[in-house]
């Protein structure tokens, strides 16, 4: 992977007890293009029969408008801390061997990965559930924002989490994944 020059390594990806374990460390935020293949290649564990990778990638359209790319901004210290906590909770809840998350900041072009989540566990059900839990919480809670840059030269901060309009609380969210999976 290409480490961020702006953010220090902050997320220990896998706490693997015993010999033969693999510890992968990545920054939760990266100002450089995400090395999806490189992250995956480092995310294997002898106890994991399932590895799930999610890559959120930049689409070429939004609300019917052609998109050139996105620009991501983050409140770095809190985003790093929060993503670390989310990964730790997921590792504990699903007994994961590996949990990795890395999100881009800065300009991201169409087709590039904006966020990667990798989970590895003994069986696939845990890896799938944990992966979805992690990306749901990052999208709703991490202080990270996207600005759409359109082909017509305009730009727009948008697609904000709107859960508060239903929950009545800006700190409470509705997740796409099974709500019974939330801690």
């Amino acid at each position, binding site marked *: 992977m290409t480490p961020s020059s702006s953010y220090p390594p902050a997320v220990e990806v896998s706490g693997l007890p015993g010999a033969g374990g693999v510890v992968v460390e990545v920054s939760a935020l990266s100002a450089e293009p995400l090395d999806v293949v490189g992250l995956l290649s480092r995310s294997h564990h002898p106890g994991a029969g399932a590895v799930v990778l999610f890559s959120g990638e930049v689409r070429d359209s939004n609300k019917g408008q052609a998109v050139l790319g996105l620009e991501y901004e983050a409140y770095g210290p809190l985003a790093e801390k929060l993503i670390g906590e989310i990964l730790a909770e997921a590792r504990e809840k699903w007994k994961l061997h590996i949990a990795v998350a890395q999100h881009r900041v800065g300009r991201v072009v169409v087709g590039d990965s904006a966020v990667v989540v990798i989970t590895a566990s003994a069986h696939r059900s845990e890896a799938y559930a944990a992966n979805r839990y992690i990306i749901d919480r990052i999208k709703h809670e991490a*202080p990270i924002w996207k600005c759409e840059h359109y082909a017509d030269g305009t730009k727009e901060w948008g697609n*904000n989490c709107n859960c508060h309009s239903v929950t009545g609380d800006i700190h409470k969210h509705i997740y796409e994944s099974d709500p019974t999976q939330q801690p």
Partner: protein
Amino acid sequence: MKIHVYAGLKDYFQSEFELREEIANTDELRAVLVKINGNAGPLLSTCRFAVEEGFIDKNFKLNSHDTVVIIPPSSGG
């Protein structure tokens, strides 16, 4: 009190600025900011606040030396 804002809030305020008023909590801070730029009101009503890299709620007692980060709803991913 130092204020940092992000994302869409930068359409209404400088990314970093200072307030001299005595401000006790986030409700008062929100009201002061709406006075500065009323157009920011709807977005401010949905924002979270943070001090020292942790989210705070409306009961948190703000101090004049605090740096308050105002956090619009997330839109990562």
